[in-house]
């Protein structure tokens, strides 16, 4: 099996980041096709494609688009979630870097369909180069009349697009926290249904707001150019289309691979050159938040939303991490817990306290001072966070740890019994977390 490149097909064409080369490879044909339709016609095309959000949750894109008011004077906002922070994922960074016009075009089409006149691309602060590429693309698109007033001569379509950069916070990728951050607040989430409004009803500045992931928007021009039915013919019936997987870890050729949804998991590993440095031990298929899959459970798993779920994990963001048999799973879980403890926004107690405790208990185990009851203590902390936290970050912190223990409990027990790793020669890192400021130079 091979890759099926729709989004990434031209990623290595010289100059494809510029508007001329992008246009000569079919760029902005999707926007022209969209403007030839009624707004509802565009939404119907996306509905026919079956496109599901690529930011992690897989929510049907058209339902969101359809949820914004179809008439009335309200200002609508359109946001692009380019805060890519899920460990193991690096597709949005490459899309913005190499194919920024595809994202701009997708946003413009969505703006037309949802009557949005103002857009913000929320780009992760660390993605300086990607943000610069997006800036260049936006400027070029304005000059060609793809952004701004009366786009392509359409009397009833104006859309301004700005870049807003984050400043270092994983939680700001959560859509309501992103909105808080855009409005100049700490990156903490807001109430959602059933307790609060949907963003499409009341989002940023109290206005109807559409938010989609970078890759979701990048799919849209292709759907409008070739038709929803064409897109739906790829992938599986319930998970149509292609998906970019960011493959990293112990493989020969790490990188972004675009395959049809439904591709067998083991084929993706082969595409990336196979496992190096030892035999396959485990895969985390969808970013750090999804349950780890031990090698013996990988056979037969297909990479689509349903296939991953049936295997006890999730497709998530497509951050596909491969680990060989020299990997200490307990140390890997310790590092995972450290990530969530660091990124917890502190708003709710189960996550703020729970992630810290998980991290500390795992520190204790990998320092050699663990107790057998610590393993069940970790499971009980997971239970106290999962389903009890304000936003999904807390749940996402508990899933990988619980799966790590369920699938590799013997390795935790080895650590407790022997005070050392089951992997011979493995010494776990012990680290401090100081502020790294210059001594005596604070004014």
């Amino acid at each position, binding site marked *: 099996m091979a890759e099926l490149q729709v989004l990434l097909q031209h990623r290595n064409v010289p100059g494809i980041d510029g508007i001329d080369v992008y246009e000569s490879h079919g760029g902005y044909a999707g926007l022209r096709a969209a403007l030839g339709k009624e707004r509802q016609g565009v939404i119907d095309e996306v509905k026919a494609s079956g496109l599901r959000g690529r930011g992690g949750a897989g929510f049907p894109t058209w339902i969101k688009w359809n949820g914004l008011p179809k008439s009335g004077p309200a200002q609508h906002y359109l946001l692009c979630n380019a805060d890519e922070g899920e460990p193991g994922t690096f597709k949005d960074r490459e899309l913005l870097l190499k194919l920024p016009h595809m994202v701009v075009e997708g946003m413009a089409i969505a703006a037309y369909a949802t009557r949005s006149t103002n857009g913000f691309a929320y780009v992760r602060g660390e993605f300086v180069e990607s943000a610069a590429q997006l800036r260049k693309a936006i400027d070029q698109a304005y000059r060609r009349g793809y952004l*701004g007033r009366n786009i392509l001569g359409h009397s009833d379509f104006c859309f301004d697009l700005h870049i807003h950069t984050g400043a270092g916070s994983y939680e700001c990728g959560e859509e309501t926290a992103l909105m808080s951050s855009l409005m100049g607040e700490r990156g903490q989430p807001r109430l959602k249904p059933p307790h609060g409004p949907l963003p499409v009803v009341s989002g940023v500045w109290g206005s109807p707001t559409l938010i989609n992931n970078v890759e979701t928007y990048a799919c849209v021009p292709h759907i409008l150019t070739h038709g929803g039915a064409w897109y739906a013919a790829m992938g599986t019936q319930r998970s149509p289309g292609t998906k970019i997987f960011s493959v990293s870890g112990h493989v020969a050729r790490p990188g972004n691979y675009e395959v049809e949804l439904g591709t067998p998991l083991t084929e993706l590993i082969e595409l990336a050159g196979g496992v190096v440095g030892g035999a396959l031990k485990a895969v985390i298929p969808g970013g750090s938040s999804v349950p780890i899959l031990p090698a013996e459970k990988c056979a037969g798993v297909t990479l689509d939303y349903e296939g991953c779920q049936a295997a006890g994990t999730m497709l998530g963001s497509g951050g596909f991490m491969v680990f060989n048999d020299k990997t200490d799973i307990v140390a890997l879980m310790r590092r995972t817990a450290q990530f969530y403890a660091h990124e917890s926004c502190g708003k709710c107690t189960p996550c703020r306290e729970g992630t810290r405790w998980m991290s500390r208990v795992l520190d204790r185990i990998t320092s050699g001072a663990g107790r057998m009851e610590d393993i069940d203590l970790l499971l009980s902390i997971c239970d106290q966070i999962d389903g009890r936290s304000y936003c999904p970050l807390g749940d996402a912190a508990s899933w990988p740890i619980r799966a790590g223990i369920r699938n590799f409990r013997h390795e935790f027990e080895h650590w407790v019994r022997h005070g050392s790793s089951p992997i011979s020669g493995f010494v776990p890192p012990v680290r401090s977390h100081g502020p790294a400021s210059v001594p005596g130079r604070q004014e």
Partner: protein
Amino acid sequence: MVAASAGRFSEAGLAQLTEIVSHYPDPGGAILPALWLAQREYGGWLPAEAIVEVAARLGRPASEIQGVASFYTMYNMQQRGRHHIEVCTCLTCGCLGAYEVIDELERILGIHLGQATADGEFSLTEAECLNYCEAATVVQVGERYFGGVNAENAADLIARLRGSEECTPVSLSNAIVEAIVPGYFASSAHG
């Protein structure tokens, strides 16, 4: 919209702030970008005066600005080294040699993680996933990413940085400001 205030914002910085405020329906939206600007104007970090100036310029209480700034890791509430080195130790990098890189950098620089060299040239810290995992181990120094760093080539990286004129926290902030402020200003409006 941008109020007069004592402080260190340059004329160019003020023009950029004015432009930025025009992007948002509410001046609150300009708080994060204004902090990026301030970080550049104040030499790569946000001393108390920078917070006070941003607050005054945007007409908000300084306590609010302090609360926002301190939430985000990329706003430097303390001064960093001229080269602020962030080594990703997250899942992929951590399994592909990141900790050996840190050991080597600690040895070369004579400091521990979380410290800065006495001459202020380097500070060293651990980073969460920089989402460049295909190039593990990844090191970020301001706006620049270095991929494929290992214990063998870490010394070359340090030599390269030593010879560079840049102050990474300033150049990072500047690059971000350039990305968020278009070449044209509000007066010459879009479209």
